[in-house]
């Protein structure tokens, strides 16, 4: 999975930040209470507006007449976990764009944040959930890790329902307190929502992006229609025109309810509709204004 160039360009001013900063060693991008010596040099990175000027390597500047910032191995204590819901309902796509399902959107979002994490030198891991496959990539950093995760994303396919809590328990424990968890799902399954709330209550920072198709938002069907649920297989015969208002009202109520629940436990929850640009939710979560706030 390769990000298109123009999408990559739009990600340039996004930063992954965590609200609660955990203690870690060394200087890093993230303000930390512990400052110590023993920097392990990792790489030089070109200076970008927003970097702290004290991080600039002046010797290199003297030699090359360009600004570079030192980055160290343990400078970035942030660990990002990407949790992707690959149940059968994620195969939903709009009729207008039948090859772009919710799962495709989730994969694209995952690839974007992996790119962000890689740029910042943060560590990241991947969890993909469905009955048939339970994919787990342990956390790591660097381009190799990125390639591993992208390969896993490519192979991820939707189907079945989510695994139950007992199956997931060992994996949840790998998610350390202080890590950033990004849940990419349509949140139709309450099990995942419960787990997100539990994680958030247990000192992990949870971000949730709910994926919604344009048809679910607008319900543009006409005449008599038969609908089928991919997960349960149930069918419903409906007169679309009369059912439209009712559906929109109930679905909106359910979404509002969900947002309230998640907010109550400290989960940052946003919605993303498939016909919107893909960087919009990322901008809301990780946009420049956010990182400015954090630096203070």
């Amino acid at each position: 999975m390769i990000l298109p160039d123009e999408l990559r360009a739009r990600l340039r001013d996004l930063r992954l930040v965590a609200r609660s900063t955990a203690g870690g060693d060394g200087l890093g991008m993230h303000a930390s209470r512990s400052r110590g010596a023993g920097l392990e040099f990792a790489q030089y990175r070109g200076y970008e507006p927003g970097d702290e000027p004290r991080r600039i390597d002046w010797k290199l500047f003297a030699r090359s007449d360009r600004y570079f910032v030192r980055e160290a191995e343990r400078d970035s204590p942030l660990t990002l976990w990407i949790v992707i819901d690959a149940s059968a309902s994620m195969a939903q796509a709009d009729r207008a764009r039948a090859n772009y399902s919710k799962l495709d959107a989730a994969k694209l979002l995952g690839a974007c944040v992996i790119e962000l994490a890689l740029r910042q030198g943060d560590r990241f891991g991947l969890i993909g959930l469905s009955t048939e496959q339970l994919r787990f990539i342990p956390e790591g950093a660097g381009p190799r890790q990125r390639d591993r995760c992208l390969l896993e994303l490519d192979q991820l396919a939707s189907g079945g329902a989510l695994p139950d809590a007992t199956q997931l328990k060992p994996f949840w424990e790998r998610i350390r307190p202080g890590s950033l968890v990004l849940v990419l799902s349509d949140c139709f399954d309450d099990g995942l929502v419960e787990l997100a709330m539990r994680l958030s209550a247990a000192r992990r920072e949870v971000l949730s992006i709910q994926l919604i198709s344009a048809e679910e938002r607008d319900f543009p069907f006409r005449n008599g229609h038969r609908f089928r649920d991919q997960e349960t297989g149930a069918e419903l015969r409906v007169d679309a025109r009369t059912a439209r208002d009712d559906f929109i009202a109930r679905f909106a109520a359910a979404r509002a309810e969900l947002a309230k629940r998640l907010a109550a436990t400290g989960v940052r929850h946003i919605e993303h509709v498939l016909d919107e640009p893909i960087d919009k939710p990322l901008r809301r979560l990780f946009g420049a204004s956010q990182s400015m706030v954090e630096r203070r």
Partner: protein
Amino acid sequence: MSVALLVPMGLLALAGLLIPLLIHLIRRPEQDISDFAALRWLRESVRPKRRLRFDDLWLLLTRLVLVSLAALLIAMPIFRGDWRTAHHVIVADGGIDLAAARMQVGEIEADWRWLAPGFPSIEEAAPTIAQPVSSLLRELDSTLAREDRLTVLVPAQVAGLDAQRIALVHAVDWQEVAAKAQTSATDQGPTTRTIAVRHGPEPISGDRYLRAAVEVWSSLSPDQWQIDDQPLGIPLPAKTEGLIWLDAAFPGSIKSWVEKGGRVLVVDGKVGQGEPVWRDEQSEILASEERLGRGAVVHLQSPLSPRSLPVLLDADFPRRLQELILPATRPSDRAFSREVEPSVVERALADRDTSLIPLIGLLLALVFLLERVLATHRKVA
């Protein structure tokens, strides 16, 4: 002025209207199935109403119109009656002088034609041979619409008539125009016949019947008969064809005239001489004809009184008398034009129908085009 159908059974094709209706009915089992993840928030709604619903209404309507037009075409519609304005047709006999005719008729807007088969336009050459005038006039009369006006221009003498008097539906404006200044030696005018009547010093009995008959001839056709009624001794006028001798016996001069080709009628009762030419119901000979040289003597039974000859009082006695005196001739097809002016009779005219088939065909083609556009446009959408 009405629309009618030549083949009303063709409207049975309207049963084909069912076919587009059936095709366009939305059939319940064929509803689309869509995958929908948010199904749990969808409430099963009231079933769609039982009334029939049709898919793509405009295309359906276009197809119904198409089938109706096709059925109408099979039924062959026509438009009865004449919706054109009344014409004024001026038809001219070939023998008239066209310039004089135009001057006489004046500047009126009319359709000028020659009285010839096909009724060619006046621009073409005049017909040279004699035309069957009566027949052509009847034909023209029946082809014109009731509202049209007809003017006929004829010379003083008209040829090509048949034995029936011309009676037309249209009130004809019968105008006599100067004939063409052409001389034709073969042209014979309608013969003016000269009959001479010679009476003796004492009138014979019953001569008033003969005079009355002759009177009838000249009153019916004054131009055709010239009667010369003189006492004996006055010489006969030239070209006398028939002579009525109201005296006992005729002299030798008359006899020689008869031998040269004249005919004389004598009331002497000698009906035994010659061939009997007229018998009554009892087969009594009333008149006989005796050939004399190139002429003939016709003996009439005497005395001329109604008691002995009841036929004297018959209505056709003048005609009989005419046949006796004059030789049977070929019926003439010539007459003076003012004598053969047509009379008006009430008759049904064949209605002029215009077929509506080309119009319906054109409409059908246009609607078919529209239907094709709507059908293919729908698939794209």
